């Protein structure tokens, strides 16, 4: 599978990832190489094999619905430079 510059632009947008224009081609070449290696998987027939999502095939554990976290809003928001009145600030979204 060869990945073109347009594919890189598209997936970078899907991942909301800014990519320098002058690097797009080299990313396309690297990703094509990686996909070429990945496609060795097609050597093996996997018809009827159940996909393995968890190495130990465990199911999600449930817990009782009780409050365990304390309110640490101020501490947790210290890592953001743009906070006001306990809210995170982002550029205007709605006019």
């Amino acid at each position: 599978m060869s990945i073109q510059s347009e594919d890189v632009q598209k997936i970078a947008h899907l991942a909301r990832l800014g990519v320098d224009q002058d690097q797009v081609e080299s990313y396309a070449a690297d990703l094509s190489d990686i996909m070429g290696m990945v496609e060795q998987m097609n050597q093996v027939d996997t018809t009827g094999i159940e996909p393995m999502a968890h190495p130990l095939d465990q199911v999600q554990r449930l817990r009782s619905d009780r409050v365990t976290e304390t309110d640490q809003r101020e501490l947790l928001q210290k890592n953001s430079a743009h906070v006001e009145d306990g809210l995170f600030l982002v550029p205007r979204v709605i006019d």
Partner: protein
Amino acid sequence: MYNKSLKQLSTSLQNKELSSVELSQYFLDRIKRYDGELNSVITLNEEAALAEAAQADKIIHAGNAGPLTGIPLLHKDIFCTKGLRTSCGSKMLDNFIAPYSATAVNKLTQAGTVMLGKTNMDEFAMGSSNETSFYGAVKNPWDLKTVPGGSSGGSAAAVAARLAPIASGTDTGGSIRQPAAFCGITGIKPTYGSVSRYGMIAFASSLDQAGSMAKSAEDAAYMLQAMSGFDEKDSTSVDRPPADLVSGLGDSIKGLTIGLPKEFFGDDLDDEMRQKVEAAIDSIKSAGASIKEISLPNINLSVPAYYVVAPAECSANLSRFDGVRFGYRCESPKDLEDLYKRSRGEGFGDEVKRRIMMGAYVLSAGYYDAYYKKAQQVRRLIKQDFVNAFKEVDIIASATAPSVAFTAGEKTDDPVSMYLSDTFTIGVNLAGLPGMSVPCGYINKMPVGLQLIGNYYDESRLLNVAHQYQQLTDWHTHVPAGFEE
């Protein structure tokens, strides 16, 4: 002093021949003296460490010391440490002060260890050479022109240079074992789910597993024992009583069967590597184990399957870095999309970007079945091969890496060749098995690692086989030239 085992250090501390403050200061001084050239430590925790050491000394004086009380260590900078910068080797988290500590860190603190600092690593644990760190490459103490391996390369280089007796690591595709091999130390990744992932910055959640890095299997066992255990804060933590990893060290290994996968000893294996590994296996045989050839027919597909599963999970996990709540934020974004794109574009390095894009690609509409589902199916085949093999053998052995440490810069322009340096280690992560690396000699003066793989939850036996090997050999006691004073 720097080459003493944890047992010896603990005895000296408890006999009051030495205080934890003195021991901690000794290793802090070694870090200051030697780390300028190695770059294995990102953040030093001197003041808080000496306070922790003073606290440990009180516990020792009260007669309440455990085997790790007062022992200094380093933590990989992927583990959240409350009040201390936790960068994950990335510009994205250069300003991130963790608001809480990882469970593994808390458990080691409760065991009385003293945190000297945080070790360098490949950015977000994505790399096999420690060259992708925002804080610069780590050097291998055996030859500063070569890489220490990755992603836990800072921890491996620091333990190898004896800058700390033990260090934590994480292993998603070989990130404990491969750097342990390159730096001539002992490292173990336990069964998936053994050590809590809470507070360990996520790369690929179904593969990530923390473990211990040390001079010897015995030291690694003491450290892993203290880190392991069920944690309800990690939904994938395994809820079973903790195994005793220490008291079985010293048991005879007579009658054990060691399996050698023929796929790991094929014609493409380097001749000198084969000799070193076979000599190590002969030593284990001389202790009473028998050897059997086995086959893991699908193991050659582990690197391809991994480079679908790991990037897919990484692209989801790293979506949390949006420039809003924590982490790097770009200057003057013109709108929300610009904020996301530029914060992520400027905050992440090249390899992280490649993997996020790779993950977004294989998960995108129309490709899911061909790649993600296919990889998960291949993953089951690989696991089944191991399950079948462990019906016939107790431990599987191979080289840890196809070569010794390579020269810095050699593979940075060729991601696929870099990925292939994990060809012997990745299958273990896909299957969720425990694996370790122990030093077993040198090629061109660079350390060689022997990989030992155990069955699920069989870390105790795995560590004992490594320990028995280390009773017969002294590779693990060697210190690289220039770090011996």
